[in-house]
């Protein structure tokens, strides 16, 4: 019973699920680069269409995907708002609130659109990564890709494990938060009432126990891992060793071609 679907693995049989995690990591990175290279509406549209195609390939229900966007909605609205109203430029519309003239400029509108589009695309695409790849697989992929950094003493293994546990803990902590909220509600706490400041103060009654719970659980999990002989520095076997298949090569090829097209051909 978890409300947070962001970052949660969704079991399914699909083209995307079958890909090697390294392929998906690479593709996500390339996609981010391409999104930030977009400089006109048509490019954003193309990126959106591409994302749509990838969603289709993942066979994950649309409802689930958009539920993952909900937490980001607030950021989207705030970003759009600030960009729209507070960017100087060529005046498009304006209206008066009391004695103050509020201006919406062409640039403002464009920036609002750009920022919103980027955030949506980036969140959608990266959530596809986590929906189709278990945290352990992502981490195994990162460890293999960046393993060479171990030679220059970068603790790749530890960093990878930290990320695994962080992702693994998202549903655990959201569950815990829900339980704590229920416990405070039964003691008469109404979180929804009050102005912004009052509500903020109320959340202390969730944040503190959640913090304590996180530390306790982290400690217990670390102990359990030690008991199972976890050692980030030593070599570890794999139940499903990472091996590239033909479909991975195809995807690599497509992503590189798309990036090159974006940089050199489509101006």
């Amino acid at each position, binding site marked *: 019973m978890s409300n947070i679907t962001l970052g949660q*693995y969704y079991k399914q049989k699909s083209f995307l699920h079958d890909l090697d995690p390294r392929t998906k990591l690479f593709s996500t990175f390339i996609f981010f680069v391409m999104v930030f290279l977009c400089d006109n509406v048509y490019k954003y549209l193309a990126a959106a269409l591409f994302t749509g195609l990838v969603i289709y390939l993942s066979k994950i229900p649309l409802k689930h995907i958009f539920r993952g966007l909900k937490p980001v909605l607030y950021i989207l609205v705030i970003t759009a708002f600030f960009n729209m109203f507070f960017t100087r430029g060529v005046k498009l519309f304006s209206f008066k609130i009391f004695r103050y003239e509020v201006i919406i400029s062409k640039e403002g509108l464009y920036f609002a659109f750009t920022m919103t589009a980027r955030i949506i695309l980036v969140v959608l695409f990266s959530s596809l990564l986590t929906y189709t790849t278990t945290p352990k697989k992502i981490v195994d992929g990162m460890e293999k890709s960046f393993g060479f950094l171990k030679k220059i003493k970068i603790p790749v293994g530890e960093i990878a494990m930290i990320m695994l546990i962080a992702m693994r803990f998202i549903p655990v902590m959201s569950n815990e938060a829900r*339980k704590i909220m*229920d416990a405070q509600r039964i*003691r008469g*706490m109404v979180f929804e009432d009050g102005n912004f400041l009052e509500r903020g103060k109320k959340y202390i009654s969730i944040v503190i*126990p959640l913090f304590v719970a996180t530390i306790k659980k982290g400690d217990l999990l670390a102990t359990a891992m030690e008991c*199972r002989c*976890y050692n980030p520095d030593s070599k570890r*076997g794999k*139940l499903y060793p990472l091996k590239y298949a033909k479909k991975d090569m195809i995807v690599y090829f497509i992503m590189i071609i798309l990036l090159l097209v974006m940089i050199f051909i489509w101006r």
Partner: protein
Amino acid sequence: MDIEVKNLKKKFDKDIFNDINFKIKSGEFVGIVGKNGSGKTTLVKHLNGLLKADEGIIYIGKNEVNNENIEEIRKNISFVFQNPDDQIIGTTVEEDVAFGPENLDFSTEVIREKVDYSLEKVGMSDKKNSLLENLSGGEKQRVAISSAIAMNPKICIFDEVMSMLDFKNKKKIMDIIMDLNKNLSVTIICITHKLEELINADKILLLEDGKIKEFNDVNIFFRDEELLKRNGLEKPFLLDDIKYVDAENIDVTNVDNCLISLKNVYFKYDKEDILKDISLDIHENETIGIMGMSGCGKSTLSMVMSGLYKNTKGKLIYGDELLKNTGLVFQNPENAFFEETVYDEVAFGAKNLNLDNIDKRVSNALKLMGFNENIFDKSPYKLSGGEKRRVAIASILSMDTKVIIFDEPFAMLDAFGKKYLLDCISMLKKKGKTIIIISHDLKEVLKNCTRFLYMENGCIIKDTLEKQNFLGFMKEKYE
């Protein structure tokens, strides 16, 4: 692989190990018992090097436990903890079970073999690709045990692994442990305070006052009432023993006075109905016991009754507006602590409801739980586990609600803890409160309740005022 502990001494907060000596032979099934806070888990953590003693030596097989060979030692000792959520690494079942063997750098084929084998041993082979978050508590615990077995340990330590489970799942796990012990010759160390889990044990180690006493005949141990009582233990609970149930005559007056009424109530959180067609009247002065397998909807029912969750269908009628403030003591209520002093924590609920006489409410509630004013200024975080639990209950009692629901209040309490709780419930009954107890503990439910409910798959399938009737019903369920 024998275990030998010699002259172990350790000082550590309140725990003191004076001079611990014991031996466990290879292949033995040993129970470690003692009252809450006696240090059972702390002691056992020394065996695989999680903790280091101040003095003394521990031998696992021929090896002395020290910093150099800890990794080797841990290959031979597996540890399973109480809460599966705190041990699980993977997302799918086989991902988690493979974690241990992967750490030991076996080849893929060997890892596959070990995973399949250990899943079969716990009866979870058909769920190897299932997502762990979709499993029940009992299934998750079996996966945790499977993860331990996958490392082919010679010694397996189980720390209160059955305390959160219903009797069906308990039986499954006891069978798995027996199989490990009898068929695979794994040495078993089982920490618990439920002696029925140790009826097949070869010997019992009692941790009392920082020392270990060995009992090689478990039956003699179980019959020593004075010894058990002193250490917060109760005789093993065997169903056949309850032939005569004390019929405490509680005067159920005001039976017509219906406080909360549920009519054809349904509740669903996501897609499936968790509560189905529940019709239930709760009367003043009743003490209702609700039992059922994990996942049957008992906790959800309590949350709908208390107004925390809104029912999706059907009617919920309160005899009095104030009843919307039903007291509900969750499992592990001490997890919701956040205030700086015990006083503030206990006053929190009463303050939120704008009740009067906060001072009086707080001191009455704390008195009911066995405390005096000295506790007011202490930090809730610095109390012992048992004290935390009592303060958490007091924080619900200060709201002085007419109905109080307890969700699994006996879990993880030893006999001393239970006594505090039962005394409190007794007092509440005398004050005319209506009590609802959700529990897996049949003995306590029979002893303390006047009305008995059993839930299955979201429905109430038994609702009776007669103890013998309910006992007979439960005996059939246990089979």
